[in-house]
C-alpha cells in the first residue's frame, strides 16, 4: 500500500484517489494564470514543517520577489515558516549562462543541500525555453528524477503547457502524477477546471472538476458522479406525506414513496414553487428536515412567500429544520452547487430536498448538455442512496400550447414521479389544472384535477375536471 500525503486543498485528495502518493514526482501543467503556482505553494505551506522542509526553486518564469509578494495575499501563507520550514531559492541567473547543464547542477546541489520533503520547481518550461538543446533537458530531468527517488521527497514540476501540449513533454513521461489546470471563458465569466491525468498505481476521479481561487487558495468541486453501486438503496415502501389537501389521499394514496424524486413540470406561475415549498415545509414542521435549493426567489422573497402561507421560515431555519440555498442562476456552477447541497443535507440530516428549478441548472452546466444530464442523473442516484425524498420543478415555456416538451434531455425518465401543472380556461376564466403522469412502482390517480391556491387556505386539490380538454395530450418527452 502506497503511503499518501494529504494536500490540505479541499477535495483535491478525493479526486486524487486519497491524496498524493508519498515521494512521488508530480507534473502540474496548465496555461499561464491557470493557478498552478497557487496549487503547489498551498500544498507546501500546508505540509512543510521544520522537520519536513519545503524547497521552492524559482526560475526565469516568476521572479522570486514577485512570487513571495503574491503568495502573501493568501491565508495559507505563514511568515513563520519562511526560513524555518520553507526555503526559497532562485536559479534564474544560472539560466542566463550559455552552459545548459548549470541550472540542473544547481538544482541537484540545492536538493542535496536541503534534502527537502517537498520540492517545487517553478517552472521547468522556463528551463526548456532557455536550454541550448533538448538532450540537456532530458538528461537533467532524468538525473533529477533519479536523485529524488533516493530521497523521501514529493516533488512538483510546473510547466506552462496547454491541454494539447503537456502530454508531449519529457516531464509527462517521467512523472508519477499529472495534474492539468485550465481556465476558459464562459459567457461573460470564466470557468477554471482541474483534471487528474495520471496517478501511478492508483485510481483517481477522471474528468473535469471545477475549481475556484479565493483568498484561501484553491477549492475544488469534484464532478458529481454516480456511485458505482448503491450503498444502502433498497426500495422503501414507506411513504412521505406531501401535506397538501388531496395530494396524499386522491393523487398518491398514502403519500409518495420515500427516497423517490418527483418532477413538477408546468407553466410559469402555475404553482410549482408553492407545491414544492409546502412539501418541504410540511415535512420540516413534522420533524423531517429539508433543504430548499432555489434560483428563483431570493431569501427575502422566500420569507415573504412562507409568511403568506403561514410558515415561519426564520424559526424553522434556527431550529435546523430547514436550509435555504439561494443561488443566482447566472453565477451557479453545478459541481460547486453539489458541494453546497451535500454540506447542507449533512448538516441538518435532511430527509427532503427541493430544487427549484432544474431548468436553471442548465446554465450551471455551462451550456454542456452531457454535463447537465450526467449531473442530474448522478444527483438523483445520490438522493436515492440516502433515502431523501425530493421534488424538482421544471418550467415549461410553451404557454397554452397543445404540444409540450416536458423537460430537457431525459430528465423526465430520471424522475420517479411526474406531476404536470397547466393553466386552463374554464367558463371564461383561467384556472389551474394538474395531473400525475407517472408514479414509479406506486398507485396514483390518473384524473385531471383542478388545483386551487389561495393565501388563506394554501394550495389544495379541487374537483376532477370533466370537460374534454386536450391540455395534457399529447405530451412529448424528449430524450
Amino acid at each position, binding site marked *: 500500500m502506497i503511503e499518501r500525503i494529504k494536500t490540505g486543498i479541499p477535495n483535491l485528495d478525493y479526486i486524487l484517489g486519497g491524496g498524493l502518493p508519498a515521494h512521488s514526482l508530480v507534473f502540474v501543467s496548465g496555461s499561464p494564470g491557470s493557478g498552478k503556482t497557487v496549487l503547489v505553494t498551498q500544498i507546501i505551506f500546508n505540509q512543510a514543517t521544520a522537520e*519536513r522542509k519545503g524547497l521552492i526553486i524559482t526560475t526565469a518564469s516568476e521572479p522570486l520577489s514577485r512570487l513571495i509578494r503574491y503568495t502573501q495575499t493568501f491565508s495559507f501563507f505563514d511568515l513563520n515558516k519562511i526560513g524555518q520550514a520553507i526555503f526559497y531559492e532562485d536559479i534564474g541567473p544560472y539560466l542566463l549562462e550559455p552552459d545548459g547543464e548549470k541550472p540542473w547542477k544547481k538544482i541537484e546541489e540545492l536538493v*542535496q543541500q536541503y*534534502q527537502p*520533503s517537498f520540492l517545487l520547481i517553478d517552472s521547468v518550461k522556463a528551463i526548456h525555453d532557455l536550454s541550448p538543446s533538448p538532450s540537456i533537458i532530458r538528461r537533467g530531468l532524468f*538525473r533529477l528524477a*533519479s536523485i529524488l*527517488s*533516493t*530521497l*523521501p521527497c514529493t516533488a512538483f514540476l510546473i510547466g506552462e503547457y496547454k491541454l494539447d501540449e503537456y502530454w508531449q513533454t519529457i516531464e509527462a513521461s517521467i512523472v508519477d502524477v499529472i495534474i492539468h489546470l485550465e481556465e476558459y471563458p464562459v459567457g461573460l465569466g470564466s470557468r477554471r477546471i482541474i483534471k487528474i491525468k495520471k496517478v501511478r498505481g492508483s485510481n483517481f476521479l477522471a474528468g473535469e472538476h471545477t475549481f475556484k481561487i479565493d483568498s484561501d487558495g484553491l477549492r475544488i468541486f469534484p464532478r458529481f458522479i454516480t456511485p458505482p453501486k448503491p450503498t444502502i438503496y433498497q426500495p422503501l415502501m414507506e411513504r412521505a406525506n406531501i401535506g397538501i389537501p388531496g395530494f396524499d389521499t386522491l393523487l398518491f394514496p398514502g403519500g409518495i414513496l420515500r427516497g423517490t424524486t418527483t418532477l413538477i413540470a408546468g407553466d410559469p406561475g402555475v404553482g410549482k414553487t408553492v407545491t414544492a415549498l409546502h412539501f418541504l415545509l410540511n415535512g420540516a414542521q413534522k420533524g423531517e428536515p429539508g433543504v430548499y435549493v432555489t434560483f428563483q426567489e431570493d431569501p427575502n422573497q422566500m420569507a415573504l412567500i412562507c409568511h403568506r402561507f403561514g410558515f415561519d421560515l426564520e424559526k424553522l431555519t434556527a431550529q435546523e429544520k430547514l436550509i435555504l440555498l439561494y443561488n443566482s442562476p447566472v453565477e451557479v456552477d453545478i459541481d460547486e452547487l453539489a458541494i453546497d447541497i451535500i454540506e447542507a443535507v449533512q448538516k441538518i440530516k435532511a430527509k427532503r430536498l427541493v430544487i427549484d428549478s432544474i431548468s436553471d441548472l442548465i446554465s450551471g452546466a455551462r451550456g454542456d448538455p452531457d454535463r447537465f444530464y450526467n449531473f442530474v442523473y448522478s444527483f438523483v442516484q445520490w438522493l436515492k442512496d440516502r433515502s431523501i425524498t425530493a421534488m424538482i420543478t421544471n418550467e415549461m415555456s410553451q404557454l397554452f400550447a397543445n404540444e409540450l416538451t416536458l423537460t430537457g434531455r431525459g430528465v423526465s425518465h430520471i424522475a420517479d414521479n411526474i406531476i404536470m401543472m397547466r393553466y386552463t380556461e374554464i367558463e371564461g376564466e383561467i384556472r389551474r389544472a394538474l395531473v400525475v403522469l407517472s408514479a414509479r412502482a406506486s398507485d396514483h390517480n390518473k384524473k385531471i384535477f383542478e388545483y386551487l391556491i389561495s393565501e388563506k387556505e394554501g394550495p389544495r386539490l379541487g374537483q376532477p375536471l370533466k370537460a374534454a380538454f386536450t391540455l395534457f395530450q399529447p405530451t412529448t418527452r424528449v430524450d
Partner: protein
Amino acid sequence: MGRKRLILIGERDYFMRQTLGQILNDFEVIFVDDGAQVIEKAKELKPDLIILEMLLPILDGFQVCRYLKNSPETNFIPVLFYTLINDKDRAYEVGADAFLLKPQSKEKILNEIKKLLGQERKGDRTS
C-alpha cells in the same frame, strides 16, 4: 582525533550511492556492487557497520546477511537493511539489526546508524 568509523555499503544504484555519500560524509564509506563483494570486504576490513540493499547481484541482501551472521569472522558487525523491498520480517529472520524502507530522511538514517554504532560490539575489529 579518533579515526572515522567505517561503513561498508552494498548498493548498486548510482544515485543512491551519491545520496548516501552525502548523508554519511562524517564516516569512511566503501561501496560495493554485489553480495559476494560485501562478504569479501566484510571479512577483509571488519567494518563498523554494513548497510545492505536487498536487491544485489550474485548473492542478494538476505543471503549476504545470513552468511555474515553465521560466520564468526563477521557476526559481530551490525547490519542495517536500507532497501526498496518491504520485507522487514525476512530481514530480521536472517539476522538484520535494523531495517529501513527506502527512501528515508537524512535524520532518520543517521539516527539508526547512531543507535547501531552505539551498541556493544560482540567482537573486535582487527585491521
